[in-house]
């Protein structure tokens, strides 16, 4: 609407400055650091350039490999399950039920609180040796499990914490479902299509843009999970829940290996970048946009 480029630039100036100072510069600096042996306690000037040594080091670092495997496992389990569950509940809620507002609130609440330390602590207590779950199992005569003490079950508790927060994805699905015109279903009813068929032929295709959005957001978030494992399991036992962000933090701020930590963070970045790139690249094959979105987002969003 306003054509004055100078004033316009003034409005976006905070972002440009902030982006350069707090994003672009650290982003590049992090890569540079990853090529050095910088230590937290030393002056930066005393760091040596070591080339790709930090990256080759990862090939020999069993902890890293373990962490990488655990991270992929975590993401590959949580993202599909969370999306599927969120979609399922959204579909159920989308029938014209009474009190849908109530259920939506109840299901959404955990994703608002779930990232907090307080919830992580509650989780830790729930899964503790004498915690809620073991007490419940005991009541029905099953001997409890040392949830946080066993590699498999420790991971399970962390995964469950993420699944517990399916609400935000559900709310987005629900809004997407609401946007599907009713008469499409009426037309399908007249054509004699079954409910299940309607879901596959109408609901799912029209929901793909929302699914795409949720998928990207969930992937990006899952790869960055920190609070849960840090507080609930501390990454253990036997590094069984030692997600990459945790390792990045500990390498940097516990062992002071800034170079190695930076290299790890770049690996994480590349992984996320590859996943989002694949998602964006593949979207033309499976994401169905009802109308062409003509430059609505400054053309840059896609």
């Amino acid at each position, binding site marked *: *609407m306003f054509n004055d480029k100078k004033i316009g630039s003034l409005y976006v100036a905070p972002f440009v400055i*902030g982006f350069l100072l707090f*994003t672009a510069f650290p982003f590049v600096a992090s890569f540079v650091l990853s090529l050095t042996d910088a230590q937290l306690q030393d002056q930066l000037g005393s760091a040596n350039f070591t080339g790709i040594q930090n990256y080759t080091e990862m090939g020999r670092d069993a902890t890293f490999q373990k962490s990488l495997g655990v991270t992929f496992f975590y993401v590959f389990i949580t993202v599909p399950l969370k999306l599927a569950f969120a979609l399922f509940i959204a579909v159920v809620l989308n029938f014209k039920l009474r009190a849908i507002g109530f259920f939506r609130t109840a299901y959404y609440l955990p994703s608002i609180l779930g990232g907090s330390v307080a919830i992580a602590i509650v989780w830790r207590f729930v899964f503790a040796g004498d915690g809620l779950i073991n007490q419940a199992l005991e009541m029905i005569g099953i001997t409890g499990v040392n949830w946080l003490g066993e590699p498999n079950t420790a991971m399970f508790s962390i995964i469950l914490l993420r699944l517990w927060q399916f609400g935000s994805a559900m709310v987005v699905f629900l809004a997407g479902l609401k946007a599907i015109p009713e008469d499409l279903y009426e037309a399908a009813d007249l054509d004699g299509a079954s409910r299940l068929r309607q879901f596959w032929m109408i609901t799912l295709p029209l929901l793909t843009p929302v699914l795409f959005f949720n998928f990207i957001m969930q992937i990006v978030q899952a790869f960055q999970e920190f609070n849960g494992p840090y507080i609930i399991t501390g990454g253990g036992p036997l590094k069984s829940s030692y997600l990459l962000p945790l390792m990045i933090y500990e390498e940097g701020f516990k062992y002071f290996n800034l170079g190695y930590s930076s290299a790890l963070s770049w690996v994480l970045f590349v992984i996320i970048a590859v996943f989002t790139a694949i998602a964006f690249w593949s979207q033309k094959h499976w994401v169905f946009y009802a109308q062409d979105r003509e430059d609505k987002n*400054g053309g840059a969003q896609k």
Partner: protein
Amino acid sequence: MSQSATADAGWRKHLPVINAFMRYGILIIIGFMMLYPLFWMIGGSFKNNQEIFSSIGFIPKEPTLDGFKKGWETSTEYTFATYLINTMKIVVPKVIVTVISSVIVAYGFARFAIPGRKLLFALLMATVLLPKSVLLIPQYLMFREFGWLDTYLPLIAPQAFAVEGFFVFMIIQFMRSLPMEMEEAAVMDGCNSFQVLTLVVAPVILPAIISVALFQFMWSMNDFLQPLIYLSSVEKYPVALALKMSIDVTEATSWNEILAMSTIALAPSLILFFVAQRYFVEGITSGAVKG
């Protein structure tokens, strides 16, 4: 033959009821299981420790405020009040600068022809996808150079520059849905662009602004890693760090204290959520559905 047909019809007549019954059944059971940890936390903060370990019910048999009293004292030289106040000292300014900077930047994107707009917008969206851990160490070193360690500045200052692309994007979406004519009317009425923003656009997109404020509030309340890195003196700890510290110290024994303090820690978010739920829903869906 005809009998079975009527029986069949009778069964079909009840189908919607059975269907609805099953749906509600599923929803209620899942909902209850989901919220149970929260109930248990709140109930547990009014129990004594022994009861926490002996009953899985969430309604305390002999309600006591012991957990709150002792938990409030904390194991440090400061009461929990200090940590709550510290949290607010971080969260409130953070929310304010986030809202102001996001609205201003979004307005620039939504309404101005700026050089390199497409590129800038792409960068904005990229910040949403960029993992924060890549920036962690250089940012830390930078703030160390600034002499900002053990202050709240590293937590707050970057937010004054609209670094959360998600918020900016959300507001841009809302602004784009506004009719341009309204702003043109304001221009004709004599407003300059900044007055159009403050007197017309901002009040009209207030729901979006509230959404941004609420999300930033929640996220900042939940934020743990940043304070963990930047704050070293206990007297400056926010609630998140204080809670973590308390489980390191007293976990084995005093669950009721920790649950009580967790309850208090979550109370502001809980209350806000229930009061302003619709803004959360609007906020999170505006980006996904309108986009």
